[in-house]
């Protein structure tokens, strides 16, 4: 790989990282796992003047129990998310999604936070994070702030992060005991989603008491299928109820619209069963 020249910086605290980012100005970039940024550098689609490597900020790594929710550090790798017991028990959907990302090498490097900050509409973690009502905890020169996922994802490759801000943690409410499934259509193992659907469902006494559905790669950012969710709540967890609700995932007649409906049906069916 032959990128344009850049300055490499390795802060050891969050404050130092934030200060460096402010000092280096708009053309500096944070580098986490590098799995999205490095391809961009290699193709010279971007030429940041400085890379601030947050790989040394150990406090950003790992998953913590925070009462009603989990705190997932931005630097937690996909591999760590896949193997984390708290995630398994309280946010199963995130584990299932992460299982489908890229390949083992990339999952050992790529990070949970990096995926969200990169905000590629084809990225798999955006829709589930949106559907699960997660909150982003962000550090900047003027301190910390919290931004709900629904406000965080703005457009293609665009988030609510200012150039001098760093994502620290993601707060994910606990969905203990919910069924979950991620239904993803991609062509070869390392390819991105054409369309994917993330579903988490709470079933009580055979009826759906709550549902969360997120759509990957059907718009310029993740979409939450609120009409599908609304159509499900209070219904029996039956095949008919699911296929009726899934029709509301999209109203168009293009290929992706079709996929949104078909995959929503399949994701919900599996989530209810699991």
């Amino acid at each position, binding site marked *: *790989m*032959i990128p*344009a*020249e850049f300055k490499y910086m390795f802060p050891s605290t969050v404050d130092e990282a934030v200060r460096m980012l402010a000092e280096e100005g708009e053309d500096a970039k944070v580098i986490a796992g590098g799995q*999205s940024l490095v*391809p*961009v550098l*290699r*193709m*010279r*689609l971007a030429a940041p003047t400085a890379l601030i490597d947050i790989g040394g900020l150990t406090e950003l790594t790992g998953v913590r129990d925070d009462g009603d929710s989990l705190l997932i550090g931005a630097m937690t790798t996909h591999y760590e998310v896949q193997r984390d017991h708290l995630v398994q028990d309280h946010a199963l959907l995130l584990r299932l999604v992460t299982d489908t990302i890229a390949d083992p090498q990339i999952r050992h490097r790529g990070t949970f936070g990096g995926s969200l900050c990169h905000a*590629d*509409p*084809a*990225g798999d973690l955006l829709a589930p994070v949106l559907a699960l009502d997660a909150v982003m905890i962000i550090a900047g020169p003027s301190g910390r702030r919290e931004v709900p996922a629904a406000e965080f994802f703005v457009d*293609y*490759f665009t988030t609510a992060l200012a150039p001098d801000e760093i994502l620290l943690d993601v707060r994910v409410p606990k969905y203990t005991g919910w069924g979950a499934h991620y239904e993803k*259509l991609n*062509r*070869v*193992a*390392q*390819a*991105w989603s*054409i369309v994917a659907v993330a579903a988490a469902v709470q079933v009580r006494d055979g009826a759906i008491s709550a549902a969360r559905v997120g759509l990957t*790669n059907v718009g310029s950012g993740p979409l939450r299928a609120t009409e599908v969710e609304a159509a499900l709540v209070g219904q029996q967890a039956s095949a008919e109820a699911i296929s009726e609700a899934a029709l509301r995932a999209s109203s168009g007649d293009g*290929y*992706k619209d*079709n*996929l949104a409906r*078909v*995959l929503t049906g399949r994701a919900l069916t599996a989530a209810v069963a699991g």
Partner: protein
Amino acid sequence: MTATAEPEIGKARLRKEDARLITGQTTWTDNLQLHGMLHMAVLRSPVAHARITGIDVSRATSMPGVAVVLTGEDFAAEQGSLPCAWPITEDMKSPPAPAMAVAQVNFAGEAVALVIADSAYHAADALEAIDIDYDELPVVLDMEEALRDNDLVHPDLGTNKCATWIFDSAEAGVGTNVEDEIASAEVVIERTFKQQRLIPAFMEPRSVVVDTTAGMFTVWSATQIPHILRWMLSAVTGISEHKLRVIAPDVGGGFGGKLQVTPEELLCLLVARRMGRPVKWTESRTESMLSAHHGRDQVQKITLSARRDGTVTGLKVELLADMGAYLRLVTPGVPILGAFMFNSIYKFAAYRFVCTNVFTNKVPTDAYRGAGRPEATFAIERMMDELAVELGVEPMKIREMNWIRHEEFPFDTVAGLTYDSGNYEAATARAMELFGYEEMREEQARRRSSGDVVQLGIGISTYTEMCGLAPSRVLGALRYAAGGWETASIRMLPTGKVEVITGTSPHGQGHETVWSQIVADKLGVPFDDVEVLHGDTATSHKGMDSYGSRSLAVGGTALVYAADKVLAKARTLAAHMMECDEVDVEFASGSFSVRGTSTVRSLGDVVLAAHVAHDLPEGMEPGMDADATFDPDNFSFPHGTHLCATEVDTETGMVRISRYVAVDDVGTVMNPLIVDGQVHGGLAQGIAQALYEEATHDEMGTLTSATLADYLVPCAADLPAFLTDRTTTPATSNPLGAKGVGEAGTIASTPAVVNSVLDALRHLGVRDIEMPMSPERVWTALQGRPDPGSGDVTAGGLGSIDAQGGQS
């Protein structure tokens, strides 16, 4: 004692070269570091067709580390034209092919300037500072449109038509007239198929290093063809051939993609000559995809005539073949290699093949695994299915009715070849058994009647192909510029170790292992005592290199003959040493003995005696080395039966291969592990054409599949577990009985997959789907809508990043 050693030939030996290749602890060209070496970076045209109206290199020239910036004008007087060794017809149109564009660019990716700098980084930085003004010309992309000659790729030629090449069985006196057969036929089927453009996608990007030290030009290149390259570089540059040494060190794949004399090889050489310093160029993946030659890209119009009882009578093939913008080494000949294979294993009375080669503003096409034969096999195997559907006959039955029966070999075909051996019945029977053909058909019927969302398809490909390129006289008759022989040398070292020199040029196939096995058996020496040298024109002074599944059938045979010469001489000397008559000398497991006595001399003793030369028979030269060159008198013809089951999700259009059986007859097998490896890799590439890979362009001629995220090369996880087996009818055209296996899997598998998917969906009204059969294409066909073409949203990509135009 080696007396009890089991035969090496046929043994599933692990490959002796693998450890170094896999760990990269080897001589990959890019690993080479020479003192004072400069680095070359190539600026490539972003537009497909334009006049260059101005170039400003002043900013780039003053960038850090830059030694010089060079443009087409700087090379105009010395670069000549890149060679095309295969002028297929007398009147073929052949435009000059400069290594670097001078006044006009004809494809996006063509070299327009070079930066030479002290590091690869400085060279790449300075590329961005070169300003070029282009005056854009109309872009010619579609072959049918190109043939209307409204816009011309090369105005000086006056046409986009490069050449038309015809074979006609009636004219050749090997069959009847195809038009008569069609006119009188009970059934005529006409179909048009598209062979999409493919990118060879070898794993090791191309790399070249040139050194001019000590009055020699030494060229290291990641090439398949060091010998041809030396000859051609000398011809183009005027550098005397004996002052040029070409080295193909370890090379990481080629698939035909490195069967080329590239612009960059020539430019590196010219720059090193100009600067008097070593120069290196190593490409990026995207650069490789933009500028290394592509493969396939044909439109095939096929007409097949038959009787109602299913007997085929005539086959007419009308091809358009996309050359791209220039004719590279064998560009025009690739479709012609298919000319002899459309009739395949079937007994047509009449055959006519007409190929029109067309220029477009795209990167040139050239050899890619199978070169001409996959296209032919695809067309005929698709047509046999179409005939079966038309007549309501089981598709295997229709093939069986028409194929050459085993007792009919040797068989003279309607394309003028003689197939020496084969047994299609045996391979088919074994494949059907392994596949569970009848049960699969039952399962298919069940899914059809229950209206299962996931339908099952069964696809057949009964193929043959021609390998062992090639009898030199045949190449001559086809107007190819070189011969097809191969050479080998054996050096018997005084300690009894053996050096083998081969004129073939392995780039991942495992020649070192198999050549060692052959020599170990022939000479009775341990496998590990054999070292195979290749790819360096200073040690291996002649050869025709590796492609066309030729290395074993032709180069392996040369090796056998060289070993025979060693043994013949050793026998004479052994008789002299044992003071007996030569006819009484026996040779087994590396030792000579006198029949009926206990007198023994090991080959090592005899070699040492030859080396010290203290007591040789009258007139015998010292030493025990031998050379042999073999020119085959026929091709070899592997064949086999492949069966593919696909599960097609009718709601999403996704295709999954659920079972794949390949029973191949590749003649006598030297190393079954290597044969399986070649079959597996070949299958992956053939399946990839059916389902995944396609070089796509936008309407401006920009390649939109220029990364491995966009160009979908499948990996192990995307492919089924292959069930492979073999039947064996030895080739009669070489003493090893080997037919060749490098391309068989690729040639056979594409139609098996496509036939399978169509078989799954035909009852739902689907008649054809273009390759690659992406989920969107399959789903769209199921809706009865037109093919999505370049709007295919499932065509891959680096997430949403558009590699050409930034983040979309």
